[in-house]
């Protein structure tokens, strides 16, 4: 069965659900969001990712209506919502603290938004039951929030924010309060629910793994600006800057002067070390400062010198054993550390590489990423 790939952002005929148009938000002298433009499409699971203080929460609160916009406009479904108060927006939010009403039962919490719409009682009850089933909470309907577990509370918060069938659901660090195992399960559950309901989700998170797992596209933010907006594989394999490369996953970054050599670039990065060959669509001038970023899992580690590109000689100084894989820190002659990862595919407890081993590391010219800054 052929499935069409979900990528409305590549289709110029698609109208985005949300458009940020040159949006600026200032708190006094501090600019939290700096003339930012962004399109988010219907049915997307869009992640805003960045360190704390990068402005991602401010963006979400502007969408919910809790923060006014200093400049620019936000369009939702073709309508400028800048002046619409939060209770009139077709947007619901799941709060980081969950913000469940402690004096109301689970059932009443989920019904809270529906009751404000003056629907008839049966319709409300039916919708609440549907939400309880969707989030597997039927058994707990009569309990109060303090009588259920953290994971269940998280699902109540989700059910409550989905009950009104919003056009857009905002999730503020939705899994931050859960432990790792539960968080991973819940990530898949979130994706399922997002698919079932067809709602557009915008999630704010500082957890890159979470963003990579759930999102259709990720916006990496830094100091109120978007650094890169792309799908998780593009963000990971083709970062557009050293910042993005370093923010998502593990990476070794080497700085040097770029020179064209045939159809690839050579980065002259250290005296006495061979230049690093790197294929790149970028156009760099002769001698321009460039960076090669290489992910540890793309670096091979050998006992004998291989006949290949980018072969460097060094010594194993640290080993991180993670079970499924091991990370080696290899120190080169000039002190530079290269991270290499090997899968532990055999159950042999004897390691093929150990501390102080003289080794060779290498990666092909397609595995490194050439960056300008």
């Amino acid at each position, binding site marked *: 069965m052929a499935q069409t790939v979900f990528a409305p952002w590549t289709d110029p005929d698609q109208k985005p659900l949300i458009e940020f148009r040159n949006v600026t938000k200032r708190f006094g002298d501090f600019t939290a969001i700096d003339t930012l433009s962004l399109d988010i499409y219907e049915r997307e699971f869009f992640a805003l990712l960045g360190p704390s203080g990068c402005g991602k929460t401010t963006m979400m609160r502007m969408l919910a209506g809790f923060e006014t916009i200093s400049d620019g406009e936000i369009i939702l479904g073709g309508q400028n919502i800048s002046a619409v108060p*939060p209770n009139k927006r077709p*947007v619901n939010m799941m*709060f980081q603290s969950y*913000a469940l*009403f*402690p*004096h109301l039962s689970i059932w009443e919490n989920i019904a809270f*938004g529906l009751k404000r719409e003056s629907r008839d009682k049966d319709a409300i009850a039916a919708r609440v039951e549907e939400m309880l089933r969707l989030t597997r909470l039927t058994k707990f309907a009569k309990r109060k929030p303090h009588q259920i577990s953290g994971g269940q509370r998280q699902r109540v918060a989700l059910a409550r924010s989905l009950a*009104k069938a919003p056009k857009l659901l905002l999730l503020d660090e939705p899994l931050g309060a859960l432990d790792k195992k539960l968080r991973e399960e819940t990530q898949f559950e979130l994706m399922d629910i997002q698919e079932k309901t067809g709602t557009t989700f915008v999630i704010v998170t500082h957890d890159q793994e979470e963003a990579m797992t759930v999102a259709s596209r990720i916006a990496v933010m830094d100091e109120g600006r978007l650094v890169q907006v792309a799908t998780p594989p593009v963000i990971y394999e083709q970062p557009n800057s050293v910042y993005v490369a370093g923010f998502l996953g593990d990476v070794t970054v080497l700085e040097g002067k770029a020179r064209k050599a045939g159809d690839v670039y050579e980065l002259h990065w250290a005296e006495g070390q061979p230049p690093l060959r790197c294929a790149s669509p970028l156009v760099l001038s002769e001698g321009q400062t460039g960076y090669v970023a290489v992910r540890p899992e793309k670096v091979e580690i050998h006992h004998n010198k291989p006949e290949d590109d980018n072969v460097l000689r060094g010594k194993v100084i640290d080993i991180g054993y993670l079970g499924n894989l091991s990370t080696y820190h290899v120190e080169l002659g000039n002190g530079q550390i290269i991270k290499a990862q090997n899968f532990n595919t055999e159950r042999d407890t004897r390691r093929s590489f150990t501390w102080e081993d003289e080794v060779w590391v290498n990666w092909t010219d397609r595995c490194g990423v050439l960056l300008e800054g």
Partner: protein
Amino acid sequence: MRRFALIAVPYLWLLVLFLVPFVIVLKISLSDVALARPPYTPQLDFSAGWEGLKTFFSELDFENFVFLTTDSLYWKAYLSSLKIAALSTVLTLLVGYPVAYGMARAATEWRPTLLMLVILPFWTSFLIRVYSWMGILSTEGVLNTVLLKIGIISDPLMIMNTPTAVYIGIVYTYLPFMVLPIYSALEKMDESLIEAAEDLGCSRFAAFWLVTWPLSKNGIIAGCFLVFIPALGEFVIPSLLGGSGTLMIGKVLFEEFFSNRDWPVASAVAVILLLILIIPIILFQRNEQKAREAEG
């Protein structure tokens, strides 16, 4: 043994500071008035032995309680006290809730200062503060002088020696007891609850009514009892600000004791007042316990 000692402390406290005085007052209320010192009979005389004890108990009776029902002054005073205490509790709530709300919503660095300002009046003598209200409210007082100067009124307001003055005095005196429990309930509240309510379609007012108000309910109940219970037996405020026109049981009690020197009737009045107060005290305790259970 240590556990026993630990439990004994609060019971000993209750015994010495509550039960023993109560038994003494109860005994006096069952006695007869006498021109003696102390002004009632019988006196307990242990030297007479068993016979003396017997005659002592045979002389106690409920005659003073019966007397309270025959004179309308007493039940009118009880009713009037209940009315004044209830109404001033409502007034204190109306004034205190916005104050507590404003404090809880103030910037964090301001809260200790605001809290201090609420507590500060307690550092001055209660009597002095009530006397200064006499200076404010009297016919030639500060309030009338200012209002007459500005030209808002042409004749001085007659507030002193009316129930209005008593209400002002009670609201002023007991305001902190209302503000503090409500403040502590509101301060604990997560502000994102209000945002969540608005996000789900509530107007500002609906969010207050459906979330803030029910969540401050325990504070409101606690505050109301803390005002109502002492206001019911209040004596100083009605006698200094209320004049002869205000009938309150605390004042009647004082007059029976010190003007009439009828200790037995005064004690009977006190015992009945205590019985009336036990009901709100039990309700208050139950509310506190429920609040603790809900939190735990």
